[in-house]
């Protein structure tokens, strides 16, 4: 199970792309402090105001189209841009290998508890 979000923004994909790969632009929307070596295999560090810090490696990078980061906790996030009449469709998919087991186990545990 993945977490998916989509928005449409009026800007063209190449304008949106800059906001995805330039650290100073990422600091305007993604995290408080960002270091990112925006090339496949490049490393990134994202820090938030609450002290949270996540490390990532760029798995895929297709300019103005697709950026995939692998988090060091095993999860990943893919951000895809698609030109649409109104501007750009931004699609985010965040996955974690533990999301699905957590949901399945929760359903299973409650069913078993109810039957006990």
């Amino acid at each position, binding site marked *: 199970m993945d977490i998916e979000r989509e928005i449409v923004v*009026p800007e063209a994909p190449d304008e*949106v792309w800059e906001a995805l790969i330039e650290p100073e632009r990422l600091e*305007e929307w*993604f995290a408080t402090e960002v270091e990112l070596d925006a090339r496949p295999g490049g490393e990134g560090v994202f820090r*938030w105001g609450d002290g*949270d810090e996540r490390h990532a490696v760029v798995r895929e990078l297709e300019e103005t189209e697709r950026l995939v980061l692998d988090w060091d906790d095993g999860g990943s996030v893919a951000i895809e841009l698609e030109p649409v009449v109104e501007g750009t469709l931004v699609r985010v998919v965040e996955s974690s290998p533990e999301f699905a087991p957590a949901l399945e186990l929760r359903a299973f545990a409650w069913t078993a508890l109810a039957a006990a």
Partner: protein
Amino acid sequence: MDGARGGVDRVFAALGDGGRRSLIEAVATRGTATATELAAELPVTRQAVAKQLTSLADAGLLRATRAGRETRYEVTPAPLEQAVEWMVSVGAAWDERLAALRHSLARKA
């Protein structure tokens, strides 16, 4: 992410292993179980089961009760709820970020 990960990290780490997930299911199916009972029906040693049960109890997924020389375990779904709530919060964080992205782009234009 966003600070809420603390306890949930341990839950996710505990869930990251297929053997531990099977154990939780085995305990949930029985209602309560000891390491000896579970080892009798699973293809693992009692020691291995006992170790996994301890780590699941540490993550808060099982509640341990001392019963004579054995420890009985039962499933506590609350941490699974936290894990699911955390997933909801990940979605909410993306809603906020994408709204911030929209503003950032508009300012730049």
